[in-house]
């Protein structure tokens, strides 16, 4: 476990996400809890791919958002909450950093994690094996996680996902035209 407070900054990462107003984190916590509980209930087999890493804490760092996510994918003790990035970070086995839209497209099974790693848009530090297990577990979930989350919130959720998908697609096109 590492408590390294180092904050990787991706090339080109900006300070804030343009579509959302600042959100008090306490409002996010019950939503995140509901999301992770639903995903776990719908996909009990996914934890097998995590092996002993299911007990580990992962730090998921959308570098262009004001918060980070803290995940323990343990079916016996699920934990998923938002953290203020200016606070001292709690212990974690690994940290996965990338822009919010890139992380979203990973969860939407539209983006390949290795490709984001090759382009340096995804940064992994800490226990690489734990991250690989988490990636494989999430990738084998039947319905894309982004879609499951959107469905939980009905039409507004699906509308928001579609908007984010379009934003991700446009960002991808912009990146392609600059490369």
């Amino acid at each position, binding site marked *: 476990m590492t408590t390294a407070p180092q904050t990787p900054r991706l090339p080109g990462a900006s300070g804030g996400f343009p579509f959302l107003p600042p959100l008090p984190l306490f409002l996010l916590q019950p939503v995140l809890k509901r999301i992770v509980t639903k995903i776990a209930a719908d996909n009990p087999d996914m934890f097998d791919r995590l092996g002993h890493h299911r007990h580990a804490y992962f730090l998921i760092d959308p570098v262009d958002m004001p918060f980070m996510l803290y995940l323990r994918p343990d079916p016996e003790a699920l934990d998923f909450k938002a953290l203020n990035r200016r606070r001292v970070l709690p212990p974690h086995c690994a940290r996965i950093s990338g822009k919010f839209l890139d992380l979203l497209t990973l969860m939407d099974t539209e983006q390949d994690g290795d490709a984001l790693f*090759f382009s340096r848009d995804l940064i992994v530090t800490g226990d*690489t094996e734990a*991250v*690989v297990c988490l990636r*494989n577990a999430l*990738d084998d979930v039947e319905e894309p996680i982004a879609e499951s989350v959107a469905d939980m919130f009905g039409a507004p959720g699906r509308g928001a996902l579609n908007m984010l998908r379009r934003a991700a697609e446009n960002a991808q096109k912009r990146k*392609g035209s600059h490369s």
Partner: protein
Amino acid sequence: MIKPELICPAGTPAALRSAVDAGADAVYCGYQNATNARNFVGLNFTPEEMEKSIKYAHDGGTKVLITLNTFPPAGNVQLWKDAADLSAKLGADACIVADIAVAAYIQKTNPQMRIHLSVQAAASSPEAIRYYVQEFGVKRIVLPRIMTVSEIRGLVEEIPCEVETFIFGNHGLMVEGRCSLTNYVTGQSTNMDGACSPASCVKYERAEDGSMSTILGDYMIDRFKPDETAGYPTICKGRYKCDARDDGYYAFEEPISLNASTMLPDLINAGVHAFKIEGRQRSRAYVKKVVAAFREAVDSIMAGQEPKLADLVALTEGQKHTEGALKTKKWR
């Protein structure tokens, strides 16, 4: 003209379903043990998952080829025998094998099972291939990535079995003992444990200036500048200091992927029976995109049309690609 089968990778049941849905003629995949040369954590199939996946594939008209493509340590073949028996019981369409003991066992106990010779066996001469066909009933040979199209054409005319060539993915040339390098550094063998650069031995370290170091075991094998694309943490693609160059140097291979999309018509004309896409360790997003792109390309060529080749460079290692030895022996 033979229409080549599209042989597609799957590291998870979800990836297998993506490959089937995207138009794979066959999917290759393996179990969660040392019989499988992609024996990575969190990846691969349990027997139950394999059974369900074979049914899904067969329902979609897709074959399933099971990778038993590692070499059993002397006197310890039981794991491979059990995997072969299981594959036959589950109705797999072929086993991809590297070791003659495994091939001999399948031929003797499950003679109805097709045997494909893995690239790991590195058979590329007519004499070697004929030996495998005559002695073990091998039906297809997966060629090492060291041959030109012209050499493949000549080989096809001389051998009594089908030929499969890689067309996309990792450009790892399994020659000259390079796979032993990972054993030296990590204590685990690609050829016998199925794990090249196991993730437990890999660390990425990021410096204040944004550069990133790749550490394998106790060794730093590459350091990428902040704006430089990265590659896999494999020792055969490490960048080393040596007397021949002033700076770090990719002494064995560069972080680059094979992409033979422009060579497909030539390979079809050469009589290749199957095209293989590498990437069982990749996500289902990769599988979906790459399989769909090559499905469209192969179908267009067979229909006499100019193939539309999707831009797959974003999915390639280091975001660089090459036709490799298919085009020229001087691919570097």
